Each structure stands twice: as C-alpha cells, then as structure tokens.
C-alpha cells in the first residue's frame, strides 16, 4: 500500500487574530501518512496556531487545510476524527481513567464490550493496565500524560496532534516519555503532528521537523539534515549550538567563498545563501566541527586565546577569543591528549571550509 504523501496539506494558509498581524503567513506544508512531524519554534512563532487550525479550534483566515484530500475548514472539530494531546493533559477530572478513555468511544456509540476491549488495549499500550478506576488527580504527571496519549489514540484517529505534551514533566521523565511516544508511533503507524519548543525533543522523535519562526516555516527536513545543513541563520541558531562570524563575501566561487571579517582576517566558507562578492553574510560553524591542535589537514587554521573553561565531565567547553569573536565555543573531548587546556593559553583551532556555512546576515 503506497502511503499518501499529502495526507495532511496546508495550502496557502494565513491566520490573523486581530486583522493587523499575521501569526501564520502563507503556510504550505504536506504531511505524509504515518509520518511523525514536529513543528518546532520559539513561542509566538505560530506553531500552536497551526495545530489549532488543524484540530479545528481556529479557522484559517485564508487558504485551506486538506485531510486526506478533503477540505476541512468547514468541518467542526468533533467530526474531524483527529486525536489531540494537550499541554496540560486536559483529562476530565471528574471521570476515572476508564471513563476518560471510554468518552470518545461512547460518543461514537460503540457497544460496551468493544469499549472495554479498546480501553484495555490502549491502557496496556501505555503500560497503565490496572489503573482503570483511578481518578486523574491520583496519578502522577507522567501517568496522566500517558492516559492523555492513550485517550487520544483509543478511537483510532487518522491523525494525532500533540501540543507540547511533555512540557510539564521533569527532565528524566520527559526523556523516557519521548521514547515511549516514539515507540507507540512506530508500532501503530498513526500520523503524528507534534508541537514543541524543545529542539532536543524534536530531534529525538521526529521523521521530519518544520522549524517555525515569525509565522513561517524556515526549514522542513529530517533532524540530521536540519542540524548539519541549516538553510538560514535562524535555523542554525535555533537548532543546537552555533559559532558565528559576520562578514563580507570577497572571493565568491560556486562551492567555496572567502569571507572577510570585521577585524580584517579572511576565512574560507561554504556558500549557502550568498550569491556574489560584496554580500553580507553570517558564517555558521558547529562547535564540534572545530578541532584543536589537530594533525588532520584542514583549510581553516587560526590561533585563539582561551577565555573560559567549563568542565562537563565527558567533554570540556572552552570559550576562546578567535578572530575578534569572544564567544567562540569549542567542545573538547575528555582525553589525555587535551590536558594542556589552561586559561590564557593560545591554541590552534582548525575546521573544514565545508562545515562553515555562509548564510544570510542576521
């Protein structure tokens, strides 16, 4: 069976609440069947609004959303058959766990035996069998979250939306829940649209990530591509750590360019969104791609002075003053070869020009 590549389709969707500001601008997004897609972005970037439009709690100001090729703007939320997990779980506090899970089945007039079976199955999926008669208030945050996930899945919806579902959990629980949700997705193959502002959550869980900023999708690609090959400086800044140099393109070629920095030195970079000499640019370089005292041959080699050392156990973060950038961060693995890292020392820093991406100026 071939998967529908346009199972959910946002087609030129605009959204404004007050008629003055567009919170979502010209959104075009295709979500494939069975995909786990994450909308990632800072707060106020329009990602939750997109989710609410898909769920039916907000109407697009312009454009149309299609679910399995059918326009859904005029379908009320309760007829869309989309499951949703809310940020604060939104479990019905006056109902037991069983009643919470049975709610979507009862309103669909499913008979009692089938309800029992489905509730059983959903609860065992989130490993909460035996909790049927508890009230939500008697459960821990993680358990409530799992009930909420089970409830969103129990009626076999085509799409499940999750609105920062792990935001209220502590770090350890959040990580184990990430895996749990990922495994549930893999085992039942439902389409998941997940909203978060936590980039590590997005990177761990998703097939694809849509990075939102300012009402627009900045980049839509797989987690590794997003991290390795950000297409603009917002994405580079937002995903993972990032060292930047602002400068001007001097020697533009198709696969390589030189960038002249404000202190006069030149670095070699990979031209991504610059087109000609004289363009302003921000060069982005991941901390782990810059090496110190390396024997490998690399085309960028500079000397920097160590300003700060932060010990992290398995690695050490070193802040150095390099080419006028006092915030240049290096990640040095904890090994006996790197014992000479001391405050004030000068060290050699090298990187490949391919990893230094010349993006749009900030």
């Amino acid at each position: 069976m071939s998967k529908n590549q346009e199972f959910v389709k946002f087609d030129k969707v605009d959204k404004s609440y007050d008629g003055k500001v567009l919170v979502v601008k010209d959104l075009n997004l295709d979500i494939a069947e069975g995909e786990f897609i994450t909308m990632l972005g800072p707060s106020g970037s329009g990602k939750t609004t997109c989710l609410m439009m898909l769920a039916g709690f907000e109407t697009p100001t312009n454009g149309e959303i299609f679910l399995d090729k059918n326009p859904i703007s005029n379908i009320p939320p309760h007829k869309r058959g989309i499951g949703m997990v809310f940020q604060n779980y939104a479990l019905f506090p006056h109902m037991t766990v069983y009643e919470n899970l049975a709610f979507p089945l009862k309103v669909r007039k499913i008979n009692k035996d089938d309800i029992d079976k489905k509730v059983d199955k959903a609860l065992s999926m989130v490993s909460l069998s035996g909790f049927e008669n508890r009230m939500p208030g008697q459960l821990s945050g993680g358990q409530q979250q799992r009930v909420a996930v089970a409830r969103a899945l129990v009626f076999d919806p085509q799409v499940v939306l999750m609105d920062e579902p792990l935001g209220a959990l502590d770090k350890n629980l959040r990580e184990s829940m990430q895996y749990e949700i990922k495994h549930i997705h893999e085992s039942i193959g439902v389409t998941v649209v997940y909203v978060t502002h936590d980039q590590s959550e997005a990177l761990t869980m998703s097939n694809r990530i849509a990075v939102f900023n300012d009402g627009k999708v900045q980049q839509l690609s797989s987690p590794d591509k997003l991290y390795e090959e950000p297409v603009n400086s917002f994405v580079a800044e937002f995903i993972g750590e990032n060292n930047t140099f602002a400068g001007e393109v001097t020697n533009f070629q198709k696969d390589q360019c030189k960038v002249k920095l404000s202190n006069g030195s030149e670095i070699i970079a990979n031209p991504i969104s610059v087109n000609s000499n004289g363009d302003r640019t921000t060069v982005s370089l991941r901390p782990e791609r810059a090496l110190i005292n390396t024997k490998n041959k690399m085309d960028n080699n500079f000397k920097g002075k160590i300003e700060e050392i932060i010990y992290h156990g398995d690695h050490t973060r070193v802040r150095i003053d390099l080419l006028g950038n006092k915030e240049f961060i290096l990640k040095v693995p904890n090994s006996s070869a790197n014992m000479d890292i001391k405050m004030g020392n000068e060290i050699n820093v090298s990187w490949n020009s391919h990893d230094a991406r010349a993006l749009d100026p900030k």
Partner: protein
Amino acid sequence: MSSETGKILTTDGIPLEVSLKKAERKNKIKAFLLVAPLLLFLLITYIFPIGDMLMRSVDDKMVTEMLPKTFKSMEKWDGNEMPPEEVFEAFYLDFQKLVEEKRDGKLSTQLNYTKNGFKSILKKLRRKAKNFEEGNYKEQIMAVHKRWADVEYWRAIKRRAPAFTSAKYLKGMDMYKNEEGEIVSVEEDRRIHRVLWLRTLEIAFFVTLLCFLMAYPIAHLLATLPMKYSNLLMICVLLPFWTSLLVRTASWMILLQQQGVVNDFFVMIGLVADDNRPEMMYNKTGTYVAMTQILLPFMVLPLYSVMKTISPSLMRAGKSLGGTPFVTFWKVYFPLTIPGIGAGCLLVFILAIGYYITPALVGGASGTLISNQIAFHMKSTLDWSFASAMGLMLLAGVLAIYWVYNKLVGIDNIKLG
C-alpha cells in the same frame, strides 16, 4: 529504635510531642487572639440571641409562676371530675396574692389565650372574693359563675402547668392541642401560616431556579470573555450590590406599578390596552421579579469562581475526542460546575426563604412571605415567643435543606469563592 519504644525524643531528651506542642503553643495563642474579637462578637450577637429565641419560643413560665400552689395541688387531680377542695383553696390563695400585687390582669389575659371566657369570670371572682369566708372555697368559687363549676375551665388551667410549651410551634403550623390533648388543625378558614410556609418555599424555589437559569450563561460568559470585557460585565453584575437594597426595591416599584415604566412601554408598543394594564406589583409577580434581580449576584459569583477554574482545554479535548458541543457541555463542563451550582442555589434559596424587605414592599397581600409574618408578630402583636418559634422553624428548615444537600451532593463539594 525510638519508634519501637513508642516515644520519639528530641536531641535534648524531651519527648517530641511535648516539644512540638510547646513550640506551637505560642502560635496557637496568637491565632486565637486574632479571632477572639470575632468569636466574642458572634457569641454575643448570634449564639446568645438564638439561644434566647429558643427559650422564648417554648417558655410558658408566666402562668406557672403565678399559680404555684394551684398547680402543686393539681398534681394529684386526674382531671376527670371537679377538682377537690384543696385545689380551690390553693387557687384562691394564689389569686388573692396576684390581686394584691395587681398582676391578676396578666393572668386573665394568659388564661383567656388558653380558653375563651376566662376574662369575665376572673373579673367577677375578683369582685366577689373580697367577701369570701374562710373555708369551703370550692362552693364559694363555684357560686361565683357557672363556668367555675365547669370542669373544662379547670382543665384549661391545668394545661398551663408545664413551664414549657410547644403551643407556639403548633400555632405556626396552624395546629393546636385541643382539650383532650390531641394535636389538631385549626378550622380551614383560619389556616394562614401553612399557606405562607408553602408560598415561601414556592417563591424561594422558583427564585432560585430563575436565578440559576439566568446566572449560568452570564457566569460562563464572565469566565470565558477576555479580561477587558469580563471586567466590564463583572461591574454590571456587581453594580446592584453597590446600591442600597431599599433603593433597588423602590426602583422596582417605580418600574412595575400600573402607571409605571414597564406598563407604559407595554401600552406604547400596543401589547396591552391602556385601560387594561396588568398588575405586576403587590402580588407574586412583583416578588419574583424583584427578588430574582436582587439575588442574582449571589448565584453568579459562586458559579463564576468555579467556571474560572475550568480549563478551556477540557472543552476542546471533549470536542477533539468526538463529543458534539452539547455532549461535551453536558458530560464534561456541567459536572465540573456542580460545586458552584450547589453553592449558588443553597445561598440564593436560604437568602430567599428568609427575605423580608422586598416582599414587604412589592409583595402586597399575595406576595408576602413567612418572614413578613414574623416581623408582624414582632412589631404589631408583640407576641415575641410566637415570632421566635416561627424564626426557629425557618432556621430548622434551612438546616434541613443543608442536611439534604450534604447527603445528596456532599458539603465539601461546595465552592463559594
């Protein structure tokens, strides 16, 4: 281990409980001193008066104290035949004492309450008793008036022997103890209180219902509107609170009277003929309209405070799970507002059941409540013990409602704010 010995000691070797008590005593005293003025105030202005009311409503000592010897001698009398000579003698002595102290008038009033006809025969007895000879009082008294020879009148006196009586409570229910000591209802055309009780319950019930029906949407709106609109709406709800009750009731009188604003409007739009203006005041309609408006905030506020805590995502969750708006409202939203409904209804019902000013002003004859009757006895007939009895019956009714509510919904399931 210390837990095995049953006593945990502090580092200094003092038992932990003692140490804790010592440490907390100061705080407890401080806390008590803070509430002491209020406690004292409540004791003086609330608990004592209620106790006093209770005493007054059952108190029947007056006659008991006026005829001590008579009642003592009556103890042995079974009440079937005429009492023996010693009762007559005791009664004569008691009566003479009252005449000397000029308190015989009060006795005649009191005995007349019990049985009509005492007033004249006591007056006659007083006149004739001056010339009584010593001994054989039975014959002398019986000769004063033929009623003194009637055993019914002596039984009536004996009925006043106990220092406590339930007569006032029975009277409040239009009942009395007849001469045989049975509890019976008064004649149909004299039953005024039962009608009033029923009307009070009916008006309180419907006012509560009307308040609920009107307050629920308002409270929902208040809880869901954005702040700037909800504040304005809240002021509109609270505005009546800031106006004197009397002024509000008076303004209803201006609105509802036959030549009033509402009737003028009806005539203007041609709903009613000018010579056929409906009476909207001095009857139940007036009481309903004015009381509902006045008590509405008491329903809105508890509902609002409960609705404010219900997360809008619950309704969204209900809808996203496939519940139609109505099903979601009924299965999710409504059950969560029950604490507010309970609080609001209880509050409004209890206030309505004892409402006084509004029904007194706009109720007329058919719109007055039991509280107006209580006030009438307090101010006009000065039968305070009867007023107290009815007041206590009202209080008992309220407590009964509270008890039923506790059984049905649970009092911890109530949220006033």
